[in-house]
């Protein structure tokens, strides 16, 4: 009896979660230009640096970890405004708040969809840009690993900022001010991992710390985001 009840509850939770995930992916699919914008932003920002600094391979490869990570961080940040804003104006956010499942749980589905749409493409494209920066193969691999481990943290932490600034004047700039300082640990460990592998050292420690950041934000950020959404929707 009790297990059946728990099972039904688990099913309801899974089905609501999948509904949110599928909906957001479907919406992204219908607005493919949005994915392209994020990617294009990433490419253009990282292509500006060689133009400003000069094409010397040694210099480029030494700044590559930092530049690529900062570019990924900024690309993730500019896409944040889309995470909740549309749902807020058309009223679907209220529906999510009134769903029987905890908001923090449903929020994880939204964040996952956001990461799949805005984070993952950047991860996949990063090695190509890394080639332009004359990064050696092992470093490219570590770059992909570090972004794979770190960008979820960016989406998770960013969601808090996006939720707090919903419907606020100048929210685009405000979100940068709120979120970028919180991104610093991910940037340090992520770029540090790539730099370590460039210098022939093990990137293990950096990557572990990066994964720890992501796990910690996976636990805490959805709760904070849900609380922020409730505050903003009032």
């Amino acid at each position: 009896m009790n297990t059946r009840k728990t099972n039904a509850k688990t099913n309801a939770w899974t089905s609501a979660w999948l509904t949110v995930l599928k909906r957001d992916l479907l919406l992204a699919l219908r607005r493919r230009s949005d994915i392209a914008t994020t990617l294009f932003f990433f490419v253009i920002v990282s292509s500006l640096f060689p133009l400003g600094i000069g094409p010397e391979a040694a210099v480029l490869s030494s700044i590559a970890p930092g530049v690529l990570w900062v570019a990924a961080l900024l690309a993730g940040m500019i896409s944040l405004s889309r995470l909740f804003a549309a749902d807020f104006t058309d009223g679907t956010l209220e529906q999510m708040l009134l769903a029987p499942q905890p908001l923090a749980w449903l929020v994880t589905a939204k964040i996952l969809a956001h990461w799949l749409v805005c984070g993952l493409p950047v991860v996949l494209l990063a090695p190509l840009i890394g080639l332009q920066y004359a990064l050696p193969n092992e470093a490219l691999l570590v770059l992909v690993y570090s972004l794979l481990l770190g960008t979820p943290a960016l989406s998770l932490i960013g969601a808090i900022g996006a939720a707090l600034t919903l419907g606020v004047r100048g929210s685009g700039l405000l979100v940068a001010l709120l979120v970028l300082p919180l991104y610093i640990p991910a940037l340090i460990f992520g770029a540090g991992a790539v730099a370590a592998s460039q210098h022939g050292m093990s990137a293990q420690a950096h990557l572990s710390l990066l994964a720890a950041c992501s796990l910690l934000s996976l636990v805490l950020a959805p709760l904070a985001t849900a609380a922020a959404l409730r505050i903003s929707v009032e």
Partner: protein
Amino acid sequence: MLIAQDLACVRGDRLLFKRVGFELSAGGLLYVLGENGTGKSSLLRMLCGLLMPEQGEIFWQNKKIKENAENYLPNLTYIGHLNGLKDDLTALENLQISARLAGNDVTDKQTLAALSAIGIARCANLPARVLSQGQKRRVALAMLWLTQSQLWILDEPFAALDVAATEVLATRLGEHMANGGMTIITTHQDVAINARNTQTLRLNA
């Protein structure tokens, strides 16, 4: 049974209302009336738990709703003044997703039946973007043919509806109350709705 006690609402630094209370039991209909800006929508959002009252408590089956959301929310259907439709999704997809989020795992067939009940089955596969205001409203309201929840809270459901749709909706609300449901509604139109007991709550500025 839904009980509201001594509710007060402040927006910005303005007190919209205070000492608002009522009891609504099975089969009951509550009209919330008042001019623009008297806090009708705020009251409805408060009853849904979306807005925290400045003062006062709301009870569902004798339990505070904010501490008991898990049992309250499955019994609640709220249609606010925003329709909650995604422009890029079709009417069918929109309705189906809303229903699933609310915990009703509906099939395409059921969804389509709901849309045809309120007379917009032919728009089922059109994206919400191209629908008119009245059509969008109807897609949102079609939810009332899919939900099994007991308490309906509707903010201006008749706004933008034509005569035929208004009548269909009024009948549906009557059925709901006849089955022991409860409805809280704000409206500017004078629409006859059948209910076992009808109350009116007037908010004054």
